[in-house]
């Protein structure tokens, strides 16, 4: 698959293409970081997954497009890896001056603010990951698969789209209540 096909696949939340991307670049990525940063396989495997998630985020929010990609996707991915490594392990802070890394940085330069935001994200992620049925399937079908409520109703045996809407509202409210505990 070409870089364009991979980027399009990420943008469309295509499970198959994303899985293929992972299998294509996993060895290259892990070998690079195991060699250059002396990290074990489990660590770099987690680093690779985190980097893939960041890549997805950059593609879906428009930060990275086929037109804006100035290097190969593998090079871009390595850059994400370095940035993610820096965020995880402070002793690699020296790589922050890498120009490529600068392009990937979040808007805020305040490390405190960055840390707070990442902590919040982590909490939200954890709360969502602990969702039970039917909220997990319903919200995944809606936000990941981008299915209409009518299609979700058919898939999950709801009476109609309105029933799906009502259930979705309940799921979101439940999550928001849990997440607000973090803020408090």
């Amino acid at each position, binding site marked *: 698959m070409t870089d364009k096909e991979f980027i399009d696949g990420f943008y469309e939340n295509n499970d198959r293409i994303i899985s293929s991307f992972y299998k294509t670049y996993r060895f290259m990525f892990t070998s690079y970081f195991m060699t250059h940063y002396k990290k074990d396989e489990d660590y770099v495997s987690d680093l690779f997954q985190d980097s893939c998630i960041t890549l997805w985020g950059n593609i879906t929010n428009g930060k990275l497009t086929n037109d804006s990609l100035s290097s190969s996707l593998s090079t871009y991915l390595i850059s994400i890896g370095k940035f993610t490594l820096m965020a995880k392990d402070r002793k690699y802070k020296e790589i922050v001056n890498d120009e490529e890394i600068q392009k990937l940085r979040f808007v805020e330069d305040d490390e405190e603010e960055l840390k707070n935001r990442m902590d919040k994200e982590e909490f939200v*992620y954890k709360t969502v990951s602990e969702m039970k049925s039917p909220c997990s399937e319903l919200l995944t079908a809606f936000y990941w698969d981008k299915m209409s409520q009518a299609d979700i109703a058919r898939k999950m045996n709801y009476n109609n789209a309105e029933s799906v809407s009502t259930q979705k509202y309940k799921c979101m409210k439940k*999550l928001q209540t849990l997440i607000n505990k973090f803020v408090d």
Partner: protein
Amino acid sequence: MSVNDNIQERIDKYIQGKMSEEERLLFESDLSKDMKLKTEYESQKEIADAVQKVHLKNILMNAEEELRSSKTRKLRSIEDTETASHKIRHLNFSLKRITSLAAAIIVIVFVGFNVYRTSMVKELGNECYSQMSAPVSRSDSPIEANMLEIYKQLGSGDYSLAQQNIQVTYDMLDELKTESKSLSGEELEYITQMLSILEQDLEWYKVILNMKQGKFRTAKKQLKAIANGNGIHKNDAKTLLKEKL
């Protein structure tokens, strides 16, 4: 539809990029003015992002699991191959060892048997020699003198001298046969019989010589030839072949 549903749907429409340009601009304008909308939007966006990341993480973890399972299967396959190869090598090694051992046993048995047979033939040779009486040797007969010499050499174990003397005596007998052609009548008959007896004795000495040296096959072959003939040692040869060899 409730107001809250509408707000959620409106936010979802914006998050998923399903608004028209006009709708989007209006929404973004509302966001800048309405803090409650902004808070709701940020909360909903957080959850929408997290739902997608959780699903994405599952895809990535499944892919990782598939890669590791594939690697494990390949390693197992290699291990199985190596184990099979090792087993085959071990089996081949075992087979080689068994074959070598079997061959060694066969050689040992064969050698052992030959040693026994050699020993047995030597004893037989000694036995046959002890049953022989010394030949008569008249002073004017070099052939008889040789025969006596051969007898003595067989007794003392001078086998190579005995072998040489046997050949010399054969040569002497051949010469005498040639010379006797000029004879006739009773004299020719006597010489012929005497030469025949001497030749048969010489043949018997060769058998005993070979037996005393442990030459089983050569001795057996000679005994068979003697047993199949009509000589004076025919019965002795037959007895030996039947009872001892």
